């Protein structure tokens, strides 16, 4: 955030703590995305749309999800991209 980066620029110790926190959070999130590969996931989307698919991959900016066998309300789309802006949440079981 803007406020924290301004504060941390003036304080090397704070900057280092912020970098470490960001790194731990990001690494764990990337691990989560990797663990979704080839899993059946359910997307809760805006306008009350719920769809199932097999998760493929995400781009690193988390803007798009690449999925297969997407069960849309009007049939199965073999390969699809889902915009993260359309998504509220994604679930899967481990």
């Amino acid at each position, binding site marked *: 955030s803007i406020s924290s980066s301004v504060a941390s620029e003036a304080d090397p110790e704070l900057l280092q703590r912020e970098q470490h926190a960001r790194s731990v959070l990001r690494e*764990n999130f990337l691990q989560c995305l990797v663990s979704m590969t080839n899993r059946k996931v359910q997307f809760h989307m805006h306008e009350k749309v719920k769809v199932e698919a097999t998760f493929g991959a995400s781009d690193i900016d988390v803007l798009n999800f690449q999925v297969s066998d997407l069960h849309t309300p009007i049939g199965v789309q073999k390969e699809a991209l889902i915009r993260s802006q359309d998504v509220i949440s994604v679930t*899967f079981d481990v």
Partner: protein
Amino acid sequence: MMQCGWPLLGPLQWIRYTDKQVKVKAGKQEEHRGWMVTVDPVSASVVLVDFSEAGASVRVVMGHAVEEVEVLQDADAETVQRLRSAFVLPKRPGLGP
């Protein structure tokens, strides 16, 4: 209690929510409870884990959809352990080599 601006909080604030049971309001009508595992510092998306008899379910709530995050309770040592083992995670800081 977090009222607004979740995506703007930043890493040092987000990390304080990890290993806590939280209630997340998202979109217009979704409300989810779970143990917060991590927050993506790029998209502010949160990862929640909920345990069941069958195993665990994971929910990723997109950062842009997060309306409110409320801490319900801290995880005890056993839950922290379950969070580590239910989900393939790398070692956390201070947990040895």
